[in-house]
């Protein structure tokens, strides 16, 4: 029974939340430009580490707002919660983001094209 600190509502039981899987997966700006293999990475591959996991949660029974969280899947220890669109502030969390293979995936490069 996790105690999740909603950035808005404060600590609540995990029963109030909806788990949204890996955080920071950008939707390709031009999906048609991706091969089936590259698109499959975006569609099906999720980080599944035994250790720090950057994940999305939604306080579905509360303020219905999505946010990000860094949690150690080996201990369920929660390092931090932070808003959508931002990166972790903890060094270890940031490292986990940087070391994610996805940062160099075709899908993410495709998505960044929109940003740039």
């Amino acid at each position, binding site marked *: 029974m996790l105690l999740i600190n909603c950035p808005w509502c404060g600590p609540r039981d995990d029963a109030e939340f909806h788990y*949204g899987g890996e955080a920071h997966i950008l939707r390709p700006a031009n*999906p048609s430009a991706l091969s089936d293999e590259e698109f499959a990475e975006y*569609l099906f591959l999720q980080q599944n580490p035994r250790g720090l996991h950057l994940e999305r949660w939604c306080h579905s029974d509360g303020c219905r707002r*999505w946010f990000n969280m860094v949690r150690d899947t080996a201990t369920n220890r*929660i390092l931090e919660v932070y808003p959508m669109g931002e990166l972790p502030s903890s060094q270890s969390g940031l490292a986990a983001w940087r070391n994610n293979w996805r940062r160099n995936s075709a899908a993410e490069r495709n998505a960044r094209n929109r940003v740039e």
Partner: protein
Amino acid sequence: MRRRSNRLEKGGRVDRTRPVRFRFDGRDFEGLSGDTLASALLANDVSLVARSFKYHRPRGIVALGVEEPNALVQCGIGNGTTPNQRATRIELTDGLIAASQNRWPLLRADIGAINSLLSPLLPAGFYYKTFMWPPGWWLRYEHWIRRVAGLGRAPPGPDPDHYRQVHAHCDVLVVGAGPAGLAAAAAAGRSGARVILADEQSEPGGSLLAEDDVEIDGRPAADWLPTLIADLQAMPELTVLTRTAVNGLHDHGFLTMLQNRAAHEGTARPRCTLWKVRARHVVLATGAHERPLVFADNDRPGIMLASAVRGYITRYGVTPGRRVAVFCSNDDAYRTALVLVRHGVEVPAIIDVRANTAGPLVDAARAAGLTVHAGHAVVGTSGWHRLRSITIRQLSGDGQTCTGRRRTIRCDALAVSGGWTPAVHLFSQGGGSLAWDEAIGAFLPDATLQQVTPVGGCAGTMSVAGCLAEGHATGGAAACAAGHEEIEAPLPRVLEHSQSLPDHLWTVPHGRPGRPLATHFVDFQNDVTAADVHLAAREGYTSVEHLKRYTTTGMGTDQGKTSNVNALAIMGEVLGSDIPGVGHTTFRPPYTPAAIGAYAGRTIGALFDPVRITAMDPWHRAHGAAFEHVGQWMRAWYYPRPGESMRQAVDREVTAAREAVGLLDASTLGKIDIQGADAAEFLNRVYTNSWLRLQPGRARYGLMLGEDGMVMDDGVTTRLAENHFHMTTTTGGAGTVLDWLEEWLQTEWPDLDVRLTSVTEHWAVAALCGPRSRELLARLCTDIDLSAEAFPFMSMREGTVAGIPARIFRISFSGEISFEINVRRRHGLALWEALVAAGEPLGLCPYGTEAMHVLRAEKGFIIVGQETDGTVTPFDLGMDWIVSKTKTDFIGKRGLDRRDLLAPDRKQLVGLLSEDPRDVIPEGAQVVETVRSRPPMTMIGHVTSSYHSPTCGRPIALALVKGGRSMLGNTVSIPLANRVVGAVVSEPRFFDPEGERMHG
């Protein structure tokens, strides 16, 4: 016959003025208020209370509390009966009825005891090596094995009691109200922190309740206790919960505690309350369990833990025997000997495995005139239904063998102590690691990530003074950590015996070299002996988990509280490895067995899951509707008239909708209010078709896909104003779709100016359809021009119907002219009744979800979740027309282009017309190209919808068939269990294919 009484002249916390009558195995007994069933049975000299699980050996009470392995009884009768209750935890109440278990026909004469003679044939794991032949016979063997297995009996019917749950929050949760726990609670409470002190016994005090040789602040512990408890109860933010077992320590300071209430508050109250606690800090003052010594025939009734013997005397004024010997490896058991002497019970001998015994307690024993056999051991016992004598011998220096002559000592009880095992269960459950402590010979709490601090016995501290000090310090610190000011208070002064170091003799030799240790019981309840542990080792089941699972040690209802460490240690001996090397099994919730009903709580029966009803529901009920569960909703299914079959009712409803006017309660459809400058752009991204140029007041059908291209939901969305849309979803998809849209907005497109609000229940919806629906509506609605020109198909108008403000949508799920009238929920019933009244002369007929299905199927309209199952694309459904070719992107576009989704042999939606026009193909039936005499057969599709169509006067079906679009006109077969149906593949539209009617 008058049984002898073991009740002592004085002592105990029982009320000698209040006798309590109870019944055990059909015989009436009398105990005292304050007794447990165990103490009352002992007082009545009942030594035999149970049979063991496997060998059916006679067993007596071993312990004082939850750790009791033997004395399990069936409590109560009828639906209120409860199996496997520990006699040591049952508070005696007047009229209590209990019975022994796992014996037949009688406890004293149990046929199953034959197993104990066969025991050489039934070692650990023997099942795995037998009953294999002839093949297929296992089920027959098993039938008999199952009958002799199991302990008590389940009640025959529903539970007469009920159970409550309550959430609680505190700064400090103290588990255990022994000296350490009390001190911790006091220190934390004094500071004003919110404290919960929970203990599974009927009164706080823990071990202090059973000590008559400890003085605190100059008073006997038991007299000092009430003042402290009074202090605690005076603290406004401190809650003391007795009869409350803390059963689980979960993540992030979440704990579950089971409070037994019926025991003392009568059955008007719930039987139990399950507390669900969030604690900032947890203090574990769970104490320790004494463990027996493992020696030959150590399971006879009358052989008890030394602390239990002491407890029965001091707490209940009951002695387990008249001549009670003591067998130990530590000083603590000497206290039991001294208590016995003080109460005039004969103690023939103290047998101490330690060769050189010294220290104040030993001296006190000698001073009391007791014989101490140092460096000796009990090598055998006699007595079947109760202990008659013990045999002792001198131990060799290394304790591995025996020397000297055998001496037999007559006694009717034996107090045994092999040391203490800290109750680290909760600490381990919560993810804490354990470390072996050689001195006390047990695992102690090591590291944890949680805010959990073990104190006292749980941390290996056995002295009362030490417990008080640790609790005091920890409680104060915990309160501070929670932001409270610690308030100084003096530590009480404690006077108690100091104890010298214990020794650990894990296996007591029986002095018969070569003979197996077949009656050295390690786990009493599951009849696991030292010999079984040796066998497991020989066969390679050496990992601690393999040992547990192969021998079943520690898998009984006591979860090995008294046996685990002994089993590990013996395995260590066999393997020649140290105990940390052997390791320990993980502790799992619950700490003690907990009523399943308590976890179910009140969310059963009427409160199991909400039933959602619409505003028109009272009318549906009043008019005899049959209902259908759709998710949580109850929807009117059809409205049978007296004597009408479902088929007749549905045919009538469908025909009315096609020929006159029908009325459907469509309130359950999901509805989402969408506002913002980018609303149209947003719809353009989540629907497959294009939305930018939809005119205000006009509506459009939309299909939503997942990113994988599979159909997820559908519905009609209307543009109310430039930046304002009203979206409808399927009934089942209402919640999912809103969440899905919010997710995209918040996580992917925060730049879009779009706001979503669910209005599903704000609007009640009555859908009129049929050729006369316009005529009917005109009678109730005068402020809207209803003509086809002024109010065309797929548009929306606002006005009033029967004086009720309404939004009217000209959309159709039936293929007929249709008006979906939306009014605020409060007016739903009034609107419905007005429509029914005005419609009667026009032949109006309310219809339910079944007729709705038939109507849409005749038109070939899909239902998401029936024609689709998460593996179906718009192209599979033949809905290419709704997938924009021009849009560069929408959710699911790329998914649709994947290799396998373009394959020509995908399942495609087609119609099926059974060759026999009376034969309605069952939904879910499988389609094959060629029928074979018997399965297996290659399936090419399945029937998704199938009805009798009164409009077409024949059965119609929709099916998903591999390459179906290319098979139009072909005949396929549907092999059913009892017959084969032939059917012709057709277009999935059976009526008004051009759709003129609904535009009219």
